């Protein structure tokens, strides 16, 4: 804290060099995320106080996505780890788990006039990260909790047709000390009851649950939440950027050798950083289905 107070926030971009963000870049990346994925929204401090992010607008202190489904526990994925990729540079570094993991299936809305049964679910197709081609999030919500006594009110319905699942609220804050985004999680059980810390650890990949996931007080809501410590976020982001740049340069070289040459510019910029960030956070919380935005091939 003292270090950050002494040094202050960074003011010039270090995203491509160090994987770090200025507060302004974080706000720009958050705006992009909210624009492309309306399930996310900006929140300000609940009590209107300044809080710890004075360089950011009062109404844009942190990002929230509520109700992300989590149908399986992280431990259930044991034996399903074929997609793991160790990111280069550090044996103790981040592992990109479940590279091939695809977000859970979302039912399509059948026509009301169709008599057909439910349309088979369609899985999201992995694709290159492309700013103009980011599919939006779309999550179904269940209504597993009975809310009224149907005997007393014959006109009341309590739908119970969707598979019950845990739900997570995901908060992203700017970390003043590492200059990176930081994730906080809050979970709810299948009947809507808040999950205990131990229960939430079940949804964090075991390699990280003991290392980087801790219980912290959310600086704006005051609630205790599971937080993924951001000490390695910047270097992981940097490695992902380098991988993407490498892949881009290889593709450009291949196109030059061939007949076509599109000469596309490298598309990763600070305002895309949260898409990249959410991609690698999905390796920590592999069963929480929030990442419908894009797939980034870093292998």
């Amino acid at each position, binding site marked *: 804290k003292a270090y950050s107070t002494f040094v202050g926030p960074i003011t010039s971009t270090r995203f491509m060099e160090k994987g770090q963000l200025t507060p302004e870049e974080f706000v720009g990346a958050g705006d992009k995320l909210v624009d492309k994925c*309306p399930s996310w929204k900006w929140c300000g401090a609940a009590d209107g106080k300044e809080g710890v992010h004075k360089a950011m607008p009062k109404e844009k202190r942190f990002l929230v996505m509520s109700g992300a489904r989590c149908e399986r526990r992280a431990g259930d994925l044991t034996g399903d780890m074929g997609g793991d990729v160790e990111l280069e540079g550090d044996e103790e570094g981040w592992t990109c788990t479940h590279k091939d993991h695809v977000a859970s299936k979302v039912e399509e809305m059948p026509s009301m006039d169709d008599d057909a049964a439910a349309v088979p679910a369609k899985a999201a197709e992995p694709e290159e990260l492309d700013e103009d081609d980011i599919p939006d999030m*779309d999550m179904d*919500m269940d209504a597993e909790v009975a809310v009224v006594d149907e005997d007393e*009110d014959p006109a*009341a319905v309590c739908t119970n047709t969707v598979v019950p699942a845990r739900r997570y609220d995901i908060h992203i804050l700017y970390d003043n000390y590492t200059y990176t985004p930081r994730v906080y999680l*809050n979970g709810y059980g299948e009947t809507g009851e808040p999950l205990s810390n131990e229960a939430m650890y079940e949804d964090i990949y075991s390699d990280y649950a003991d290392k980087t996931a801790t219980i912290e007080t959310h600086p704006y809501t005051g609630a205790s939440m599971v937080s993924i410590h951001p000490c390695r976020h910047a270097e992981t982001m940097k490695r992902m950027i380098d991988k993407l740049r490498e892949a881009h340069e290889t593709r450009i070289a291949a196109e030059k050798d061939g007949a076509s040459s599109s000469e596309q510019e490298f598309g990763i910029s600070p305002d895309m950083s949260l898409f990249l960030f959410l991609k690698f956070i999905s390796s920590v919380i592999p069963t929480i289905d929030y990442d419908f935005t894009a797939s980034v091939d870093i292998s």
Partner: protein
Amino acid sequence: MSAARFEAFAPFPKVEFWAQLEKKKIHEMRLSAASVPVTGFFKAARSPNCVEKLELTGESFAAPNAGAYEYTAQGTVTNFNTIEEFRALDTKKTLAGLADALYADMESNAYLANPRLLFAFHVFSFADLKAHVFHSRAVMPILSPPPADLIKSSPQHSVSAAKSPVSPARLQTLWNDARGVDGPVRHDGIFCLRNAGGDADALALAPLSSLSAEEGVAEALGEGRLVVCVVDACGAKTHMGWIVRNLLVALNMSFGARRVTVLSLRESSAAGVADSVFATFTMGANVARSALRAVGWDAEKPPVDLSSSMDPSLLAKESA
């Protein structure tokens, strides 16, 4: 036509809401058991057979800051000082009082200017500050007509059906224009779709308040020249959400409307509003207050126990 049923819509207080309530109880509310205004947030249904929750969050006590695809509901929280007071809550009397207030809003047409009065909610709680356990009950008062006049509904159809009052593409265009920051129906949750002529260009969205200065509303509603649109948290294929119930009764009271076509607006980021549905509702007779029955209590839920996740250092700091 069959007896219409509606998906219940109850407040869902989140952990941040209880954390804020605890702070407010210590620093602001203290021993006051007066009702405090709060805001609930909900989304239009994003996929079939889903029901979005009416969430109470850490922001519920502050000025509402709804996201781009979020809508707000008005409510109150009444926090009792003891568990005995909470348990002694007279649910029948409380509901009767809330129903009277709702009826007054319908009778005075106040709901036309503020449609959110039709889906106001109330939370009654006891916050055990020592154990960090939160007890609560919630109600969204509904005025239900007597059985003889039960609301009946036609089968629901997609807006892509041939007889739809508006095509999905046209509805999307109108909705994009209307839901903007300065749009006429921003966050109201209920509004109108008018069809002044026969073609798509004659369709327009308007706030519900535009009905107050209009004549022949019941006829226009009955003939489908006027359609009422509701941002619906319920995505079911067979029925609509709770909000429609009070709306139908209110339109019956204000304009004598006995046949109303309702467009249930559902909105996903992938399909836009193309998954919206419509249905026609009928009521047997004009309803009187004495015939309306109040319902809407949420089923009692177990208390929320946050003792395992409360931060000791924060508590020590705050209690000092």
